[in-house]
């Protein structure tokens, strides 16, 4: 089996305005292999968030093809896309996006509850506890998200993203709403995860954190203009 997790072929994205079409992506080709840690950076408006949205099936392409683990996911129905997001993709957002009305435990368990695999209650408990342990937040399982600090919330979000064992972790400016200490902690967790084999694709405009990735992509005006691979 091929170890290519993500494959984009000449992907374009056009936003149609009233009188003008705006190209956010102008033919992006990208391959991410298992175990890679890729960062995408570039100036504001270069298309990095759009690229991450397309990678996460949160938006669709205007042209081109998109494969996840060899499956063409370019044209999916709403529910098919949801199923792929649930089973293959884990998201970490800048603003954490935890659901206030749910406890920490339930927030982490949510992807398992939406899964087609019909996890038993015991399986869910086991997986959630493992996830919380991994981010050292087991002691907060019964808390509500608004009782936690920003750094703690982002750790919970990481646990939630990983609980369904996705093929790839998509991370959008993970430290954008955190102080530097919390940001460093979160980045350490991501590095650790990658070292243990998790494939990660992260959007950031902070060069310090972009450098922590094993491969850095620079996006400019909707195109990948540079790929850097630290020695």
């Amino acid at each position: 089996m091929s170890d290519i997790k993500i494959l984009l072929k000449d992907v374009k994205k056009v936003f149609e305005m009233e009188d003008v079409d705006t190209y956010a992506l102008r033919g992006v080709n990208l391959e991410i292999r298992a175990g890679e840690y890729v960062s995408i950076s570039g100036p504001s408006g270069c298309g990095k968030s759009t690229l991450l949205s397309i990678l996460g099936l949160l938006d669709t392409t205007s042209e081109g093809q998109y494969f996840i683990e060899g499956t063409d996911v370019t044209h999916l129905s709403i529910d098919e896309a949801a199923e792929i997001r649930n089973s293959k993709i884990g998201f970490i957002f800048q603003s954490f996006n935890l659901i206030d009305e749910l406890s920490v435990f339930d927030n982490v368990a949510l992807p398992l509850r939406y899964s087609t695999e019909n996890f038993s209650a015991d399986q869910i408990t086991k997986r959630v506890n493992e996830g919380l342990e991994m981010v050292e937040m087991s002691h907060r399982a019964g808390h509500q998200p608004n009782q936690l600090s920003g750094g703690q919330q982002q750790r919970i979000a990481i646990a939630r993203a990983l609980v369904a064992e996705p093929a790839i972790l998509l991370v959008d400016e993970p430290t954008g709403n955190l102080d530097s200490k919390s940001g460093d902690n979160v980045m350490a967790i991501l590095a650790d995860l990658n070292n243990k084999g998790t494939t990660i694709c992260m959007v950031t405009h902070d060069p310090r954190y972009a450098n922590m990735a094993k491969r850095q992509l620079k996006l400019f005006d909707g195109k990948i203009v540079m790929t850097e691979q630290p020695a």
Partner: protein
Amino acid sequence: MKSITYQHKQAWASLKKKPGFIVTILVTMGITLGALLCIATLNYLLLAKPLPYPDQNKLYVGQHLLQDPAKEVKARAYTYPGLVYMYQKQTSFSKSTIVSYEQGVVTSLNSQPTVDTSATTPEMFELMNIQMSKGRGFSETEGLNAYNPVAVLSYKGWLQYFDGRQDILEQKLTISGVSYRIIGVTSKSFTEPQLLKTGRETAVWLPWDYNQTSEAVRKYWGDVSSSLFFIGKLKDGEQLRMATQVLTDLVDVRWQQEGIATGWSIRIDLIQMKEVILGESKTMALLLLGGVLGLVLIAIANISNLFMSRTVEQQGSMSIHAALGAKKSDLFNAMFAETLQLMVMSVIIGLIIASAGFYVLQTYLIDVLPRANELSVNVFTLGVAVLVALLLAWFFAKLSANLINYRQLKKDLQGSGKGTGVQVSKTKRQWLIGSQVALATVLVIANLSLFNKAMETITTPKGFELAGISQLSISTATSMPINSAQSRAVMQEIIDSLASQPQVKKISQGKSPVSGYDIWAMKEISTNERLTPLGKRIDSNYFEMIGQPLVEGRNLTADDIKGGASVMVVNEAFAKSFNKGSPVLGMKVTRGSDSVIEVVGVVKGINLPNESDQTPRVYMPERISSYHLMIQFKNENLVFTRARIAQIVSNVDSRFNIFRYEDLKSLHTKLMFAEITAAVTTSSITLLVLFLAGVGLYGILSYNIQLRQVEIATRMAIGAKQKHLYSLVIKDSSASIGWGFVGSFVIFVVLFLGFGDAVSVYINIGLLSVVPLALGMIVLLALFACSWPLRRIIKRPVILSLQ
């Protein structure tokens, strides 16, 4: 003053940018306030406004009650001599009058219209303070036994039948062969007390002596007529109870002297004229008001939601105002200027709709709603309109202002603008959903229940056929008495002439099943039991023509009719209720004379609107001189016109003319007018309620979903499918909807406990049959309101909702 003008200019400028918002509010509030103003004015008229007669609270209508030995009331109608006797002998009233409500054909006019006439005494003009637009009313020269043939026209009658001609006085008017000299026209403003029937308006007033009661009945104390009325103004200081007793003694003693029925008695009840005119309409008016208030509350809930959403939308500009020094009261005043403008416009539309409502009520419900002819936009309507506009404007402004967290608003401008300065709390949103559901459920259940009742009457099998059958009533156009033998001969000739027409299938002499029955007092010979069934005279063709099957015994024969046999056919209800298990065939009764009438047959019952199917009915041979015919046509689409019938009748004898000619289908439909009106009204209100509730629930739930947009998108991002999201939203709303249902139950209980007597007809066990349907409708509506706004989020790229 300058600042108020400035605020209103600003408010209008801001509103103009939101035409959809304006239209939604004007349509919702305009319609509902229109209904409110219309029904509120009706309630004022029926419940509070005095009758337009002097000393109206002293005016009483005397009711003549026929009681059996057990003092049970068997009839509420006067005997002719009893009424005249009471009028002449009473001492309890300072002034009294009697009136006989009738109809007559005006043969002196080319169109020969059938008009409503009232025969009365001169006191009517004084008691009702009838002002005249021309000439005079009746005076002593037109009193009892004066036999002065004069007539007074109503203003409407003058315009309708005489084209308002100015030289109307001293003109002649011929009714039933009597020529009357027209001496006056009542004023336009005079409103006649509608005692016999709501909506009936006298076109011609005649002196009492010229009422149509036959000479025989004028002397007979055994027959009663429901068209006879007594009106009196109670003397100052006279006690009502005392007057009732004195009148009862007066009439009963005289009636007993006639020996009509042993053990039976007469009682006189005095009812305030207003009560007689209004009848049961007060309850109807209050229920209408309740229904309309429900609609208004739903509309207010909807509009509250719109105003709250608008406030949320406006928080940016409010933050700027707050930062520039606007106080909370300034923000309230700005909102009040907007809400006031919108409510004033809504009320203006409401007044136009209310005027249209008055027209509809006066055109279509004049026979159902007492005093409907007095409905108009008056001081009361305008007062309510102004009050409602101010109150609602204040309420909506206050509601919106209460959403503003003034301190947070100022911070919003300095901060990230995440918008927490204005938010509708979760409790408030749930309360709005619950109250919408509760009100909508109450109104839908009540309307469906009334709709069911009306449809039950409309769709109940009649038990007889009426397609292709018309009712013809003939009258004489001469004052020369036509004796019975002459009448018989002419009627036979008319029947033969009609029967010989190729389009005609059959003729039956007698009134149709939908033309009404009389109450017949009878005595069963073996037990001396007094019976009061409904009676009708028919011929041998009657049952066959209308398809009413015989179940026992025999039909009336042509010989029975010809010989005027003392036999009768009864319906099953009569057989069941009066003969208590014994065979009814052969049962013998008398009717105020020595002649013994024998029951020879039993027919199946029929169902007429507003009458129980268990109503006992009897049928006796019609007199062959009867002026009433039923014509059955071979093809129901090829029936004769009135003109064609008139031609046939006048060809036989020009002294005879058409009094009434109408097909039975129309007559039957007219009988069901109240039910048809109820069915149309309740179904329309149900749809309106569902529409308003739908708009309201959609608004609130849409706002709910708008607030949860990021949460929903997050769930989508981590793999929630459509079913997960729909079930999430539905589950979240179901508690509020459930509480709404509980609330509706509580409203019903409160209504029942508070107004048990008035609403027991409407709130009873029968409601249960429509509850599942009503709840189903509301649940479907709520499901739609939940899912439609969610659909918008699901259908667009997730990233757009996450941003």
